[in-house]
């Protein structure tokens, strides 16, 4: 593996973006901005020099974080798509650089101007921090966190850029930075530790800020821990999944991209389930629900709801291109491959993912049985919920797979829109049909959607005719979709019709 500063992709960006005239201009502008921020800080805090330097330092760090966040997101968010547009990417792919080396070159090279700007202002912000009384450990910690944040944002943006057909800076920045910010809201939930993804809690901890959501320490496996441990841990863990996706796909044609192999997708599902239980604060679990606690049954409900979403996500990232599905069909007919194949239909893997998810729920309940009786988790109800979600997820994923093998333009976009239209339509129809009769509305919902599994206690769920009929209906639809897919992939391919010579 090449050292990053010798990586040709890194060197290219340094050469292109840091030519002396431009670098000098940027450095001068940065210094001017530092002076202006200093003046602004002085205007706000003239009495206490220590407080002035603290304010000056924090504002500079805020500006540096903003520059890094947006530059990394926007730069890396268009790095691949733009090269595809310009038709330069093929030549990069046909060099001896591995996908890993291309990734490192882009992640370190594309936002080079942002790193340079931060480097220019770094002496000022560090000096201000030191004069403000922040310890060297705090200052080093802050910049290490910013570096990790930048690398994580760059990786996430690069994955999006790899998937996008056209480069779109603003959209990519929002798609990455907004969810990261949203994680901060989890600081007051029973999954407080997950808020560490947003980096802010760790920065507040370093500065000793007394922010309300952070008054209680997060837990890991039920033990109290620090955001300073959790943030690097989570960024590295999520970053590793992003690296895996990039290394698998950076050199592939866009149409051939499969973010994860099927085993890896099931593994990602298990990993996210594991995070759910690892960060579930047992102190927030109680047999009676209150303003800051949830019951184990609610936790199980949350876990199954999360898995409903994960099943759809796993199905979506493991959809098979028509070409590979046809080849799989031929090999399966020849007895060379089975249903659990990388190129086959996604449904067997959804069953595997659901089984793993349920096993983890049972393991969590068993692990906490000394604190919370097993019965409070209502594991049988959770199993039934998961089966219902699995059937609906299989139906929807197979529908998307059918769209993918049909001759539609943008099949996945259309498929997702059709599904959204379906759920809106059945919700309206069930709502109208249920005017004056809750039972009729419930029956309609049970027949056509999986949502009712969360809204009713176990006995209704177990003995419901609507649910049983709904399951039967969905299984029949699944069989029909499977037949339609098989019909498509069994068709022999025809030769291209060539045009006349020029």
């Amino acid at each position: 593996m090449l050292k990053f500063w010798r990586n040709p992709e890194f060197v290219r960006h340094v050469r292109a973006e840091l030519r002396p005239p431009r670098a000098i201009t940027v450095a001068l502008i940065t210094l001017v901005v530092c002076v202006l921020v200093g003046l602004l800080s002085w205007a706000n805090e003239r009495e206490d020099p220590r407080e002035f330097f603290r304010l000056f330092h924090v504002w500079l760090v805020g500006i540096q974080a903003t520059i890094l966040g947006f530059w990394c997101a926007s730069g890396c968010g268009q790095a691949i798509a733009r090269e595809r547009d310009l038709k330069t990417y093929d030549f990069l792919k046909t060099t001896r650089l591995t996908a890993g080396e291309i990734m490192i070159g882009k992640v370190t090279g594309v936002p080079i101007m942002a790193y340079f700007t931060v480097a220019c202002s770094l002496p000022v912000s560090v000096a201000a921090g030191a004069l403000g009384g922040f310890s060297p450990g705090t200052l080093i910690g802050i910049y290490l966190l910013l570096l990790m944040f930048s690398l994580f944002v760059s990786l996430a943006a690069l994955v999006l850029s790899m998937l996008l057909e056209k480069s779109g800076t603003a959209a990519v920045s929002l798609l990455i930075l907004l969810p990261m910010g949203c994680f901060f809201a989890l600081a007051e939930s029973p999954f407080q530790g997950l808020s560490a993804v947003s980096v802010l809690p760790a920065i507040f901890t370093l500065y000793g800020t007394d922010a309300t959501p952070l008054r209680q320490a997060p837990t890991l496996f039920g033990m109290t821990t620090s955001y300073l441990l959790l943030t690097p841990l989570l960024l590295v863990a999520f970053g590793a999944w992003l690296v895996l996706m990039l290394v698998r796909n950076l050199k592939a044609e866009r149409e051939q991209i499969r973010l994860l192999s099927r085993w890896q997708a099931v593994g990602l599902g298990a990993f996210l389930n594991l995070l759910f239980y690892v960060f579930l604060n047992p102190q927030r679990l109680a047999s009676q629900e209150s303003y800051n606690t949830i019951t184990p049954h609610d936790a199980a409900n949350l876990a199954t709801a999360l898995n409903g979403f994960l099943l759809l996500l796993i199905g979506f990232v493991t959809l098979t291109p028509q070409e590979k599905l046809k080849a799989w069909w031929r090999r399966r007919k020849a007895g060379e491959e089975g249903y659990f194949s990388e190129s086959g239909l996604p449904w067997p893997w959804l069953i595997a993912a659901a089984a793993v998810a349920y096993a983890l729920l049972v393991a969590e309940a068993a692990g906490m049985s000394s604190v919370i009786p097993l019965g409070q988790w209502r594991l049988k109800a959770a199993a039934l919920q998961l089966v219902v979600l699995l059937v609906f997820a299989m139906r929807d994923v197979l529908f998307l797979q059918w769209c993918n093998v049909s001759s539609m333009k943008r099949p996945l976009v259309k498929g997702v829109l059709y599904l959204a239209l379906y759920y809106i339509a059945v919700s309206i129809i069930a709502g109208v049909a249920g005017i004056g009769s809750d039972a009729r509305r419930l029956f309609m919902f049970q027949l056509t959607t999986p949502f009712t599994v969360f809204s009713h206690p176990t006995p209704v769920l177990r003995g419901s005719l609507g649910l049983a009929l709904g399951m039967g209906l969905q299984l029949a639809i699944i069989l029909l979709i499977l037949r339609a897919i098989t019909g498509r992939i069994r068709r022999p391919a025809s030769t291209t019709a060539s045009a006349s010579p020029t």
Partner: protein
Amino acid sequence: MIRLEKLRKEFDDLVAVNDLQVFIPEGEIYGLIGPNGAGKTTTIRMACGLLEPTAGRVFINNVDVHEKPERAQQFIGYLSDFFSVYEDLKVWEYLDYFAHAYKMLDGGIPARIDEVIAQVNLEVKRDEMIKGLSRGMKQRLGIARAVIHRPKVLLLDEPASGLDPKARLDLRNLLRSLREQGTTVLISSHILTELEGFCTSIGLMEKGVMVRSGTIEEITAAESQHRVVRLAWLGDAETTIKSRLAAQAKASGLMVSGREGVFKFAGTDDELAAVLSDLVASGVHVLSFGEVKQTVEDIYMKLSRHEVM
């Protein structure tokens, strides 16, 4: 040097390349000819590892391109028809970037950059920004990039697009000199004149299938089992010619137009000479008599009318 084994590519319901079987020995310049949509670009993209085949394998210098892509790439230089270059770099920086990306040894890179810049006649532009170059110059820079790492195999997809006549001539000369150094070239085009003069072998593609492959002589000979002979005469000799040719077992399909005619002949040169002697002996005043040689272009035109299939 280049071996395509049962190479197949399907796009949805279409077979773009259908079980292609090709071997190109070292030092050949192999022209891939076919109408638009014949599968040439798909073949080249699979050969250089950009496109994963549905089935089959590609070997370059005995390395499987899709199993060991990074190893195979050291042997491959690739250039496509329409492409861009990094406009924010200087000419030498662009070549330096690719030299490092091909993991050439640091010590030899500056000299090699100067060498290829001279080969494509861009010496005066060495330190210029690429955005200031003309389209033809950028195409030449692309060629320099493709050969910077001294590849054993060059895969060129319509490389002369956008080049002026002099640059086309330079490209031909460059490819010839590379061939003399042992480089194997696979070059695609639908413009015959680009290839006919300097390719040592050609492959004719149609609808994803290689319908003919071999040296130009082999292909034209294979298509000329029934030679076409054209003759012209003086006076009213049509009846005599018809009766004399009807008596020749290997002559067929006489078509007459005024005092000219063409017929197919399946015999040897000696037998053809005997036919001429017979006509002269029969009193026909033969004005001209000769075989109509089939060119690659004739075969190509047949191909595009689906007559070869």
